[in-house]
């Protein structure tokens, strides 16, 4: 039987604020345990929450960037359950009336097509603390520094049909929240993580199959692997005549498998109700318009602009707008090169990306600055060096040997463009290879490459290839 995969993602993005969502404690990462947990975060008797204005603005920014409705009225609710990292015995979240709902984003697929993924809702909530299971005489230690950190939970429609699409969606949201500067996207620190709802159904069937939820996946690679594993597992179960149990599963990256979390004795009954300590959040048009004005150019608009302004292919434009850092690096290269858009695109997606991949580093850690790369491209464009020589210069720049002009100067890589000098060299080559000249004139015109190679060899690649070709053709034709 042919199966169709159905995936929906719930992404938790930590909002980039200085203080917590309901208290004035710091959200800085990495502090000593419980030194950033104030009375409110600890849920001491009598304390009360007051909402941080920044989280409202950041959530609205996300809503506006995803064609969503930013709710004029949203309500905080309590989600009640007991867990040691949840100090109050309830999490303040949004339930019936989230701040953002009914939007979408378009994701770019490998075959250069796009697919629209619905965003059901994005709601504000507080994060829980952290349980440390290292041994404290058989006890678990609780650190509540993270408790009360603001999160935006972004819930998609079940619109994805493969693990690859899920990854593309997650990457797009990741790029978007960083473009919007609402989340630092740091997956190691847990600032951006996701749960995946996965089900399969026979192809053509209308209703969804039973889904499982894979919890807390914190890398793109793991999302793909976890979903693929889970899809195979579900298909195996179904094809063996079994049934999928609706449950929560954990992905174990070491074993590359998902496994059921210890089944709870009782079904969760969160007893949601509106939090009486908080009032409805009312946003007016002025507020929303003010937020709209702060929006940066968004990835899709930027991609379109790149395609027209720099005559880039869709594919290059997608890559170059994949992150805000990548896009701004690219534009700086173009500027420094004197407007060489296509050339810049080739180099950034080619040489530079290759280098970053090999080194496993991000673009903002690139050993070659955008200004230096642009300077190099400028020398290609003005024929100071050839593309081939440029690669040598690039490598030297990677090693920190200075900007392009310095490297070209020091290594004497400047292209020979003086036609008199080139003609002299060409004549030497022709004189030294009379047999080949004869063969060429006898009709074997593909020998032209051989002569070019000889000239280049004699000049260590520095002769301007266009000029060499022109002169060779002229002399060989017997003029």
């Amino acid at each position: 039987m042919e199966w169709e995969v159905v995936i929906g993602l719930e992404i938790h993005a930590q909002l980039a604020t200085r203080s917590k969502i309901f208290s004035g404690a710091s959200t800085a990462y990495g502090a000593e345990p419980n030194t950033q947990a104030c009375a409110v975060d600890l849920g001491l008797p009598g304390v009360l929450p007051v909402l941080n204005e920044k989280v409202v603005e950041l959530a609205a920014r996300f809503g506006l960037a995803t064609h969503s409705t930013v709710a004029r009225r949203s309500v905080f609710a309590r989600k009640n359950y007991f867990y040691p990292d949840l100090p109050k015995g309830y999490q303040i979240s949004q339930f019936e009336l989230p701040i953002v709902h009914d939007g979408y984003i378009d994701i770019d697929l490998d075959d250069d097509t796009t697919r629209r993924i619905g965003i059901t809702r994005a709601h504000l909530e507080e994060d829980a603390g952290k349980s440390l299971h290292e041994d404290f005489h058989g006890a678990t230690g609780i650190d509540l520094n993270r408790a009360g950190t603001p999160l935006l939970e972004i819930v998609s429609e079940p619109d994805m049909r493969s693990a690859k699409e899920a990854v593309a969606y997650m990457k797009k949201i990741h790029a978007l929240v960083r473009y919007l500067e609402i989340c630092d996207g740091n997956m190691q620190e847990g600032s951006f993580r996701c749960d995946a709802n996965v089900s399969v159904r026979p192809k053509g069937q209308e209703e969804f199959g039973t889904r499982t939820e894979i919890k807390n996946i914190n890398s793109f690679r793991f999302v793909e692997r976890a979903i693929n594993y889970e899809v195979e597992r579900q298909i195996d179960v179904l094809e063996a005549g079994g049934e999928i149990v609706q449950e929560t599963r954990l992905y174990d990256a070491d074993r590359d498998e998902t496994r059921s979390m210890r089944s709870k004795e009782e079904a969760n009954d969160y007893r949601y109700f509106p939090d009486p300590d908080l009032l409805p959040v009312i946003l007016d048009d002025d507020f929303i318009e003010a937020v709209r004005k702060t929006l940066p150019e968004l990835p899709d608009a930027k991609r379109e602009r790149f395609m027209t302004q720099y005559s880039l292919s869709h594919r290059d434009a997608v890559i170059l707008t994949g992150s805000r850092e990548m896009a701004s690096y690219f534009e700086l290269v173009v500027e420094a090169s004197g407007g060489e858009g296509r050339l810049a695109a080739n180099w950034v997606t080619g040489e530079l990306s290759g280098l970053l991949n090999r080194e496993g580093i991000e673009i903002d850690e690139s050993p070659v600055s955008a200004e230096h790369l642009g300077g190099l491209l400028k020398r290609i464009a003005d024929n100071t060096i050839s593309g081939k020589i440029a690669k040598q210069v690039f490598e030297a720049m990677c090693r920190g040997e200075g900007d392009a002009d310095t490297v070209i100067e020091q290594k004497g890589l400047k292209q020979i463009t003086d036609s008199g000098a080139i003609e002299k060299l060409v004549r030497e080559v022709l004189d030294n290879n009379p047999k080949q000249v004869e063969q060429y004139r006898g009709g074997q015109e593909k020998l032209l490459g051989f002569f070019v190679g000889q000239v280049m060899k004699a000049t260590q690649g520095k002769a301007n290839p266009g000029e060499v070709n022109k002169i060779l053709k002229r002399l060989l034709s017997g003029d």
Partner: protein
Amino acid sequence: MSLDQDTIRRIARLARLGVDESENETYARSLSDIFAFVEQLNAVDTTGIEPMAHPLDARQRLRPDEVTESNQRDKFQKIAPRVEAGLYLVPRVIE
């Protein structure tokens, strides 16, 4: 409206309340009485009436995003039943 002892056990469990088996019956009886008394609400037609979660129709006030709290761990943990290395300790949680 009548709540049986199983219901009492289930609610006590949800609320993590240790209730003696011997008290279950008393609670079942008094909760049944209370919910029987509450039943009279059902006689009221509330179609189209917006639930009132707050006495005043006010809107949420917003706080500037500023760090105003400093570390008071020692003071807070002085009243904690069990701490070590700055952490609150609970019986081992198995995930």
